[in-house]
């Protein structure tokens, strides 16, 4: 189904379908891909590339389990968990923004998007502070393979969050126009932002907890 043919009327039907049996759900559920197909191609590809990195990490960790565990213990699990909650909340706000957009509540959608984006910025600031503390502490703390992976994973993820913020800004500007064509763009932006959240969930488990 081409996205341009997906109207706001269909969108509200789609929302009802997502909400479950309550309300007047359409007879036959609409199976469709939110946003643009290109975004999904990118998201799935990106996830597989990250999976290769995770495989390398798991293999190397199995070779030196104690060294990796020691590296892991020098990270702040509390900050990692706090950052996870920040990104999860940000994801919720962006999901609600999409819901508001489908109801054509563009002002409300912009408010929710702004809140979601602000939490994303907070995430980046906390991550930068965490790096600063690690780098300040000097090389002895950072030596070893664990920290190579730590900086690689968190660095790549940092770039993804930054790109996500650029995309959310574009979505915000699109919502200001409030033209009928912006729904697919809001959906695609939301999909990307949720992928950033997705990656952090597994990176948090691999680096901070396992």
């Amino acid at each position, binding site marked *: 189904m081409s996205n341009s043919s997906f109207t706001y009327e269909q969108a509200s039907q789609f929302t009802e379908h997502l909400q479950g049996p309550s309300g007047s759900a359409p007879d036959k559920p609409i199976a469709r891909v939110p946003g643009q197909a290109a975004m999904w191609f990118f998201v799935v590809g990106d996830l597989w590339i990250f999976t290769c990195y995770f495989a390398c990490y798991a293999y190397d960790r199995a070779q030196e*389990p104690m060294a990796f565990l020691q590296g892991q213990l020098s990270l702040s699990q509390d900050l990692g968990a706090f950052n996870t909650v920040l990104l999860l909340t940000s*994801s919720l706000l962006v999901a609600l923004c999409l819901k508001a957009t489908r109801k054509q509540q563009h002002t409300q959608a912009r408010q929710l998007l702004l809140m979601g984006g602000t939490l994303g910025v907070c995430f980046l600031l906390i991550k930068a502070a965490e790096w600063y503390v690690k780098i300040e502490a000097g090389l002895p703390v950072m030596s070893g393979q664990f920290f190579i992976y730590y900086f690689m994973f968190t660095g790549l993820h940092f770039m993804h969050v930054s790109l996500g913020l650029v995309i959310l800004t574009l979505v915000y500007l699109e919502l200001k126009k409030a033209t009928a064509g912006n729904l697919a763009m809001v959906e695609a932006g939301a999909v990307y932002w949720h992928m950033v959240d997705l990656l952090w969930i597994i990176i948090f488990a691999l680096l901070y907890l396992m």
Partner: protein
Amino acid sequence: MNPFRNLSLFQNRLTHVWAFLVATTLASWWLGGSAHRIMEGALAQERFTTTSIIIAIAIIKMRLVIWHFMEVKACPRWLRWTCDAWLLSVAIIVLGLYRFA
């Protein structure tokens, strides 16, 4: 104006999913923190059970984000299967390599 108006926040499935995600984050954070308690003289291999639970929780969390936030539950079958195949692969690859490599 209240940015949450007309969203029935407390009856909203998205909010329920979010609450569950935060709760499981706290649970795995507590589990991961247990490393500090067993560090003394414990072999990292003994952590395999804890590690498996932590990875399993992460997989469940990611499935919920994919299903409800990314709305894949209402997507065509090929995308639902692609996402589930990815999740299963991550679990098998990470735990398999960590355990047997």
